[in-house]
């Protein structure tokens, strides 16, 4: 059962300052180019909370773009692991839902030690979206704007105070450490929260239905010609893959400093690239761009639900913002679901 408290807004910066003494604090900041990015906080007053979803996504802190795995010299190996304790403040619900899925993906069968050691040392304070963006559609997937479980600490902005919920032991311990800042919750607070969530839910503009699209694909009504048509608009920039909080493909490379000495690291890779499946002897199993795009959508719309029972999309809308060809998840699902007959 979730524990609920009230936090006065005036106490928030004090709480964050206290937390920062113990661990590294990461929060959304406005960059020089006016983008919202998650960064380690220097000045607490710079934290920017009025934003829909940060670009890039939260996966950066659990599965970095470039991550050193181990050093080797003359056959001996030293593991490199990041054991920094982190609190990530101001994450959105869609990202928290993505992490819940990533935990399952990296934790099943063969456990990914690098992801898991970072995950173990990270605690999240998520924030309910009061004003979702025009590109957001988490409501249609049940991954936001308000979560009922699977978060550490969730804050709902009630104007002058936050309603604080915890669903994990880690989160509860953090609150207990600073118990004097939190007060008891009253019935009127719940009512205010309900109102806020209701108004937030009414603000979603995108009305897409992934389940309909999935059913249509499964029934075989979407031909390869459709994907070839989509491919014509693809620039192969890989933006959708890099921004997606649920895309986890990586490449493993070695870098040498001298002979027999160097380190092995992994970097993000994208299935949109032609060279992604390239085999020795210049064999390209997926040379067709349409087939690669189909693979990406099938992974998210078909294989993810088959395996995890959830779509491989959390409705954060990052691909919509990023894609220069307007062939992002929302538009493609819409085209599959409603479409126009001429194109299909």
């Amino acid at each position, binding site marked *: 059962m979730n524990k609920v408290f009230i936090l006065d807004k005036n106490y928030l910066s004090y709480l964050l300052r206290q937390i920062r003494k113990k661990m590294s604090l990461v929060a959304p900041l406005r960059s020089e180019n006016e983008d919202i990015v998650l960064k380690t906080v220097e000045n607490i007053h710079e934290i920017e909370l009025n934003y829909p979803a940060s670009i890039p996504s939260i996966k950066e802190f659990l599965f970095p773009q470039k991550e050193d795995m181990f050093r080797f010299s003359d056959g001996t190996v030293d593991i490199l692991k990041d054991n920094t304790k982190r609190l990530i403040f101001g994450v959105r619900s869609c990202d928290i839902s993505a992490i819940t899925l990533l935990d399952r993906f990296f934790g099943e069968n063969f456990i990914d030690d690098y992801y898991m050691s970072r995950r173990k040392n990270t605690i999240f304070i998520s924030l309910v979206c009061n004003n979702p963006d025009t590109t957001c559609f988490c409501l249609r997937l049940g991954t936001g704007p308000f979560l009922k479980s699977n978060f550490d600490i969730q804050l709902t902005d009630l104007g002058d105070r936050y309603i604080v919920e915890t669903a994990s032991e880690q989160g509860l311990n953090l609150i207990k450490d600073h118990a004097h800042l939190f007060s008891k919750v009253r019935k009127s607070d719940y009512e205010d929260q309900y109102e806020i969530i209701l108004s937030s839910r009414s603000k979603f503009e995108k009305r897409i239905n992934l389940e309909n699209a999935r059913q249509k694909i499964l029934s075989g009504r979407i031909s390869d010609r459709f994907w070839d048509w989509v491919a014509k608009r693809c620039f192969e920039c890989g933006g959708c893959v890099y921004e997606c909080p649920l895309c986890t493909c990586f490449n493993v490379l070695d870098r040498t400093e001298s002979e027999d*000495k160097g380190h092995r690291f992994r970097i993000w890779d994208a299935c949109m690239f032609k060279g992604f499946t390239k085999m020795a002897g210049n064999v390209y199993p997926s040379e067709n761009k349409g087939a690669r795009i189909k693979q990406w959508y099938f992974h998210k719309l078909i294989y993810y639900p088959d395996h995890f029972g959830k779509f491989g999309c959390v409705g954060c809308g990052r691909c919509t913002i990023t894609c220069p060809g307007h062939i992002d998840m929302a538009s493609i699902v819409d085209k599959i679901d409603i479409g126009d007959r001429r194109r299909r």
Partner: protein
Amino acid sequence: MKSRIKDTYLPLKAEIVEIMDMTSDIKLFKVKPYRQFLYKPGEFIMLSLWGKGEIPISITSTYGFHKYIELCIRRVGFITSALHLLKPPAKIGIRGPFGNTFPVEKAKGKDVFFFAGGLGIVPLRPLIHNVMNEKSKFKRITLICGSRNPGEILFKDDIDLWQKKGLNIIFGVRKGLQLLIHNIEKKDNSSQRKVGIETGHLNTSKISFKNAYSFICGPPVMIIETMKSLSMMGMNEESIFTSLEAHMKCGVGKCGHCYIDGKYICTDGPIFSYAELKKHRPSY
């Protein structure tokens, strides 16, 4: 399936103790791991060449019979070229074993066919070895072996040994990569073995395919053609098995490079039945 490996991405130290030339571009590497390393037929390892990278390689030796892990590698890409330049002893790293094994238990009491095209004999060798050791448990055992030219037939010693034990052998030699039967070159005069592509022989032999099991390995075109022919000749699609290959970076179902149609070749495969392949890849 629970992981047998503690550090998923950390290679185990190993040493190449011997390198043997098989043909002009194929070498056999004998690898000695520093710790005990158990493996079964059909599984593969991730071979690390420090500073160069990691590649998936299938194991061609039999655990318990061969002293070292044997890897038969053709010089094709960046890492295999570097491997071919090595001189023993050389330090490398291995991870694994990964993947599933050939479901040989199912084939007991039945006719068994092995189809090996070129390097395809490599993952089949430990399987044939195990099957020949328990020969009484199987009915007829046949190996249909093909290669580009007679000089490129691998593991001839092993094949002779198996033949003595009672393995039926059909050799096929194919010029270049052409698959049409009229392009077969009949050059192999040295032995009175049949010549042609693997599938070409099947039409002539008087064998019932209904209850037989087959294990196919080779280049993709050969796999597809053989599977199609076998299924057309009445073999059950669930008893035709093959080993697939793909670009891999992790071997543990995380990196996504071998993820095709909802299956990871590294963890769900690399051995698939024709029925599974047809379900997931309509192109087959």
